[in-house]
């Protein structure tokens, strides 16, 4: 079980992920609504894993991922984006993302992916 930081610009998605992760026994370290806040919260909370939306205001998820990797090269980040943006996978993986989930997602699969990434 891990301490997780949820990054998404929509409250609905953050709440959904929070519920899913909580039901899987994880602890929610915190939430961020954009990339800048994500980097700041990562520094402050040092979570075990981050779920990171890709398209966000101020700083997008890929930039935020770079920022987090600059602070902690071992950071575990699972990218989370909408259908049709799968071409971002390669870029995110190159940048150091450990996993990728596509919205809309199903709870058991999200928990499985988080478990896999936490075990790395």
């Amino acid at each position, binding site marked *: 079980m891990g301490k997780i930081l949820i990054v998404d610009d929509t409250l609905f998605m953050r709440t*959904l992920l929070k519920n*899913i992760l909580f039901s899987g026994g994880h602890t929610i370290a915190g939430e961020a609504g954009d990339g800048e806040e994500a980097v700041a919260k990562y520094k402050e909370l040092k979570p075990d894993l981050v779920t990171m939306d890709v398209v966000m205001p101020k700083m997008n998820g890929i930039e935020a991922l770079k920022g987090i990797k600059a602070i902690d090269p071992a950071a575990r980040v699972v990218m989370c984006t909408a*259908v049709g943006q799968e*071409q971002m*996978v390669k870029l995110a993986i190159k940048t150091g993302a450990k996993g990728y989930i*596509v*919205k*809309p997602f199903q709870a058991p699969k*999200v928990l*499985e992916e988080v478990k896999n990434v936490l075990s790395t």
Partner: protein
Amino acid sequence: MKEVPAKIEHNNAWIVIKLGIGEDRIALPAPVNKEVLFKTVVDVEEKKNILIITDKTNVEVVYKILSVDKVLAVLKKMILSSCNAYRLMAYFMSPAIKGGVMIKDAQWEKGSVVVVHSGIWFVSPTKQVCVPVNDVAGIELTKREVQGKPTDVVRIDHLESGEVVSSMVLCPLSTLQVLFNFLKETTKSMDMKGTELDGVDQQVAMLIYSGMDSHAIENMLNIPHKQLDAIYDKILKLGLAEVATIRREVQLTTKGVRYISDATKSQTN
């Protein structure tokens, strides 16, 4: 012609036969006494270990054959390569995404995509995957990075044991367009205008998709259960969902209250 053991449904009973498999046909011995040419097969379905073949010469005749995986794999490969269907050579990846999670070791496989009445088959030398048309949740002509380049693909979302699975098909754009139009036409009955649900209704649908139960949905969206019931009715009426379980809320009778009071007393004494 090779002979393999199998069972066939005949007069509503399963009977054991020696199924003959030839280059262009199968032979069903007595009491069925039929030969089915692969080129006259118009539909192939698979349900667990049963292969359902529809043959059409003058009239449509359905044959249900039950056998071990190895035999069915050979049959499927032979029939799908010659049957009467829309067929195209393509690369496919199935599954590519499961429940929203990318399959990391998913590979493009060279083979063919065969579209029959009841579904879409992905066929390669090692794999025969069927997506029934009724399970197709979405079709999209989209782009995916292949060997470093954004490439046109058709993405097919389908349900597999309650899980949403996406498969990808890659071939020349003109062929993809034909496949896309063909699949769109085949699954037209499931198309919706997109205006049937309002914002909250859509959020409820999304939460159902994600596996949330009624209690979690009420809490997350901060809506009373009567409102959620009304949204469920709307979603059910549109055919977007089906009732999985019915839960009841109950209150204690006088007898129940007395029982609990007595039980509490005995615990405190």
